[in-house]
């Protein structure tokens, strides 16, 4: 912003236009109204129709530059002096005016009318009141500026425009770069982390399923293993059962066989044993071993006796027969002698036969006697009445002899 300063050269009739402006801060609109400020602002603006900076008309017809562009420094100084003097004079005049003495303690001067007649003092002109109401402003007196007490020495240094580091201006690009870079970096890192986070989430989701499936697989594996084991156990059991069954069947068969085998054995063994005499009746045995020999002995003795008897009888008979023969012969001869030879032949045959029988009977008796002797005991009582037998035996022999005698003639 620039300000048009009142042109001093005008008075001196200088042809050229010069412009200069003081550096000043940008005026900000104040919050509160400040007395005597408004006029300044308005006076800055000029009408451009009268602004000498605006060239009007043909620029070729411009007047040439004056020899000295600068105003005379002496002239300026003089003018300033004159102004200063006028101000000083005004101030002196004010001070010279007599004043009423100071008011007493606790009192105060006040303006009072001293005329004869009191009248209302007013310079108000006749007027009509028209009102308009604006928004109420907060009319607050400006707080007095704090100015610390000055210390130390004043030192000045000349600074040209643009020399100083204008923080507001200079900091912005740097700040922007800094902030931009930081944000960019942060964004990268955040994105990286976010990506990792996403990956992790997905990984966890996957792991959730994976673990479940893994457990399921292992469970089934384990189940399968158990089932297999169970199956093997069952099979083993079954095999065992089969084996046992087979064994039992074999045993039963063996038993049956043994039974059937042994069924015959006992009787046969008993038979054999009985045959071999392992089983016996003590009475029978006693009879057999004790009684029978004795019996036999006794029987033998008895037979011997009877044989002896028979032999004796035979001997007796023979003697008797011989005697009888002799007597018969003697008789015969006596007859013959008496009757002649009527029946010599018959007597001869009769005589011859008993001799023959006697001869034959003696050797025959001994062997023939044994069997009947043996048979005799069972059939007959135990040889009781041997004496009684003798006549019979004698008769038998006699019969035999008679039979033999009968046969003999046949054979002969």
């Amino acid at each position, binding site marked *: 912003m620039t300000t048009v300063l009142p042109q001093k050269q005008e008075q001196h009739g200088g042809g050229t236009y010069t412009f200069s402006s003081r550096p000043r801060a940008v005026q900000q609109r104040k919050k509160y109204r400040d007395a005597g400020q408004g006029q300044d602002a308005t006076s800055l603006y000029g009408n451009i129709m009268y602004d000498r900076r605006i060239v009007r008309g043909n620029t070729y017809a411009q007047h040439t530059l004056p020899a000295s562009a600068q105003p005379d420094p002496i002239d300026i100084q003089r003018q300033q002096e004159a102004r200063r003097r006028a101000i000083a004079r005004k101030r002196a005049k004010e001070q010279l005016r007599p004043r009423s003495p100071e008011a007493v303690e606790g009192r105060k001067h006040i303006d009072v009318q001293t005329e004869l007649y009191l009248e209302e003092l007013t310079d108000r002109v006749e007027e009509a009141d028209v009102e308009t109401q604006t928004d109420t402003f907060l009319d607050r007196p400006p707080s007095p500026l704090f100015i610390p007490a000055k210390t130390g020495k004043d030192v000045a240094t000349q600074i040209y425009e643009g020399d100083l*580091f*204008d923080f507001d*201006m*200079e900091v*912005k*690009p*740097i700040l*922007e*770069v*800094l902030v931009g870079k930081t944000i960019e*970096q942060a964004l*990268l*890192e955040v994105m*990286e982390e976010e990506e*990792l986070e996403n990956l992790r989430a997905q*990984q*966890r989701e996957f792991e*959730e*399923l994976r*673990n*479940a499936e*893994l*457990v*399921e697989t*292992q*469970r089934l594996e*384990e*189940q399968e293993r*158990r089932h297999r084991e169970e199956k093997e156990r069952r099979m083993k059991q079954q095999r065992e059962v089969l084996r046992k069954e087979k064994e039992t069947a074999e045993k039963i068969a063996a038993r049956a066989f043994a039974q059937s085998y042994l069924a015959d054995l006992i009787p046969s063994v008993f038979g054999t044993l009985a045959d071999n005499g392992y089983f016996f009746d003590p009475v029978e045995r006693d009879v057999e071993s004790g009684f029978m020999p004795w019996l036999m002995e006794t029987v033998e003795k008895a037979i011997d006796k009877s044989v002896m008897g028979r032999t004796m009888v035979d001997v007796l008979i023979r003697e008797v027969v011989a005697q009888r023969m002799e007597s018969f012969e003697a008789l015969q001869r006596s007859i013959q002698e008496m009757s002649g030879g009527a029946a010599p032949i018959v007597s001869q045959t009769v005589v011859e036969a008993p001799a023959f029988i006697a001869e034959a009977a003696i050797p025959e008796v001994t062997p023939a006697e044994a069997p009947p002797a043996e048979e005799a005991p069972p059939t007959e009582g135990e040889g009781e009445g041997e004496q009684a037998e003798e006549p019979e035996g004698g008769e038998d022999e006699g019969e035999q002899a008679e039979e033999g005698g009968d046969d003999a003639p046949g054979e002969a």
Partner: protein
Amino acid sequence: MAKTVISQKLPPDIDPTKAPLAYGDRALPRLNRELNDKELITRQRALMTLCDYLHDPEHIADALRVGVAESLKALLSDKDPTVRHKTTEVLYVIATHNKGRDAFLDYGIIVPLSKLFDDSVDLARKNAHMAMEMMSEIPYGAAGVVEAQLVPKLVGKLRDELNEIKELILDTLHFCLREETMHALVAGAMEVFTELLGHNQAIIRAKAARDIMDLSVPLDGKNKACEVKALPPLVGLLKDGDTYVRSMAAGAIATITITTQGKYLALEAGAIPHLVELVEDKNSEVRLNSLKALTTLSEAPEGRKELLKHVDLIKKRMEDESQAVVKAATIAVRVITWKP
């Protein structure tokens, strides 16, 4: 708004801790050169700038091309703590990208980085662990960490590190355990995790539970978990105020109770009532894991008997908004109501 008037002088050096960036393509080669400078302050300034510069994913590939990775590897053994701290930070930023992880393996940065686990500067250690965690996020990165035999070392560190570093170690181990569990089991990781279940920070409890789950995936781990009595504290965590802790504890129980021994230990510890409560949880992961745990528990006859009382509750979950929960609930109902 900026005005047209600007100062004749250049703006003052605004951040003396940072090296100025060269324009455009020349930025990274110059930074790389400065990284190898003998002057300490130059290295530090270059690292500071690099830290910020690499946050932009566009610059990662360029940085690796000009050989920043090698320079950083050398700087890992620098004497100055600030250099080490900033180096690990840059490595962390690089490790967030796939290309960076490849470079880690190519230049063998894992082992020198793991040396910093014993660093005296907390920040350097933390950043090293962060980088290692990032590294292990992908399977071949985790394989690299396992190959470098770092698992026992990490397990050892877990006992006496700062809490936030513990968190990072638990994450790293989580990924490593997916690769391989034998080393960790031998190093006694299960005992350490079980101890951490009683930690006062929820996130550490949750991560410890999660690592127990990872560790007990193979049969040996399950047996070990039963051996060190991890189940009672896990059952206790089912009542935890933190959702993540609850879900991870339920998951760990589900994994351990696969074995018959685990099932009976969990039943003894009284897991079923708590798990049944969790079936109604707001978080779908908690619901899913608790349903899984109930499914495994119901395979034991005692568990099935107890759960038959709660079948209706589980049946309600078959109309859940999460598809996985619906599936898990269906399976759970089927297993519970299964009759031989």
